């Protein structure tokens, strides 16, 4: 029973992050009737599953690379790429949410296929692959210890965990869509940024761990490792539930200067860039409206409304 519960929890914890990322992007694309892009999202998720399986195979057949510096640098690089792509996606959505609302769907759809499509696919792929490979390794590792009844209990735990993640995501989504689209949009943007920031902090941690094996000056060790403050007593980041908080938001009970700076710079850059993109979009929209004033809706719009 204990094994079933811990399996359930681990699968739930690992699936929810990928579901959040994909679900938010899906809701956004659907809202703006960008059906063609939704296929890319699914394609990215499928690629992510394949990559997760591939990484698990690498783990069992090239374990020295996977657990050694090579693997650590690979995962750090993947997480930085995902964090930056999430930021780019938010900046891009910000720049287009205005034009999308004002009957410029076709133009927007064109831009998506030009610039956002590949990013969309990669974000979905990395979100699934990162958590997925951990889950596959865990399931393969723990599952191999069980036989007979306990193996089926263990499998049931894994399946229940995934269903629970799906359910909690659907409930969250339903709750969120009860509020206005504007608030839904805002809050999902924040969730995406939280996940991106958490990836950035984890990547920095991984890099710091690798650098720590080298002969570095003391200030660099202090920068990477010395805690600035401690909220361990208030909200520890090591318990089962709160460790999820750490992996979803980048929260650390005893953060180093490096971790704090990584999070601040990430958030500041995202907010500044998306504000700028929003401003540019409003300007552009104003000029289009001026030149378009009084004109009837174009054929492009009519086609999309169908």
């Amino acid at each position, binding site marked *: 029973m*204990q094994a079933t519960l*811990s399996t359930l929890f681990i699968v739930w914890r690992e699936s929810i992050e990928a579901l959040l990322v994909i679900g938010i992007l899906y809701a956004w694309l659907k809202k703006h009737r960008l059906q063609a892009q939704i296929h890319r999202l699914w394609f990215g998720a499928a690629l992510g599953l394949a990559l997760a399986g591939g990484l698990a195979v690498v*783990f*069992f057949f090239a*374990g*020295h690379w*996977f*657990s*050694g510096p090579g693997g650590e640098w690979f995962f750090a690089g993947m997480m930085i790429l995902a964090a*930056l792509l999430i*930021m*780019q996606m938010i*900046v891009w959505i910000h720049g287009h949410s205005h034009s999308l609302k004002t009957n410029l769907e076709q133009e927007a759809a064109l831009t998506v296929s030009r*610039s956002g499509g590949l990013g969309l696919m990669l974000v979905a792929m990395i979100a699934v692959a990162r958590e997925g490979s*951990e889950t596959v*390794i*865990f399931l*393969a*590792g*723990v599952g*191999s*210890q069980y036989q007979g009844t306990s193996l089926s209990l263990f499998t049931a735990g894994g399946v229940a965990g995934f269903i629970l993640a799906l359910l909690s995501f659907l409930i969250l989504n339903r709750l969120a869509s009860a509020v206005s689209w504007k608030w839904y949009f805002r809050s999902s943007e924040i969730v995406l940024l939280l996940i991106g920031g958490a990836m950035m902090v984890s990547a920095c*941690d991984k890099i710091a*761990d690798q*650098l*720590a*094996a*080298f*002969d*570095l000056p003391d200030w660099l*060790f202090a920068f990477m*490792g*010395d805690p600035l403050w401690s909220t*361990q007593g208030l909200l*520890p*980041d*090591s318990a089962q539930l709160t*460790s999820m908080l*750490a992996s979803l938001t980048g929260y*650390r*009970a*005893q953060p180093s200067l490096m971790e704090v700076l990584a999070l601040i710079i990430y958030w500041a*850059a995202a907010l500044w*860039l998306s504000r700028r993109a929003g401003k540019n979009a409003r300007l552009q929209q104003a000029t289009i409206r001026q030149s378009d004033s009084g004109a009837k809706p174009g054929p492009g719009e009519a086609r999309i409304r169908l």
Partner: protein
Amino acid sequence: MRICKIFPGSGRFCLALVIFLLCGGRALAALPVYTITITDGVYSPASIEVPPRQRFKIIIKNTGKGPAEFENLSLRVEKVLAPEVESFVVIHPLKPGNYHFIDEFHLDMAGFSIMVTEPKN
């Protein structure tokens, strides 16, 4: 290309980092090293004693049949090892106390402790 546009100078920074890693960083020779093995959830030795405020390295070997995960979340150590694989972690200077590690794949086992104690004079 897009990322370079958004973050000017990021390319140059990465290049510098790579050059540093390729030739600048030499392995820390003076670092105290402790070696432990994990065999299907059983740590050997079950605990080590280390002096406080000193950085040290732990070499972990998985000699079990299945994968193992050397984990202590408050120290941010999560090392997954395939069977017959060896790797290392560097632990930051610690305050006196007891730091407990688990094997996430064998949660029912006793785990491993780092005891940080002031040297007796």
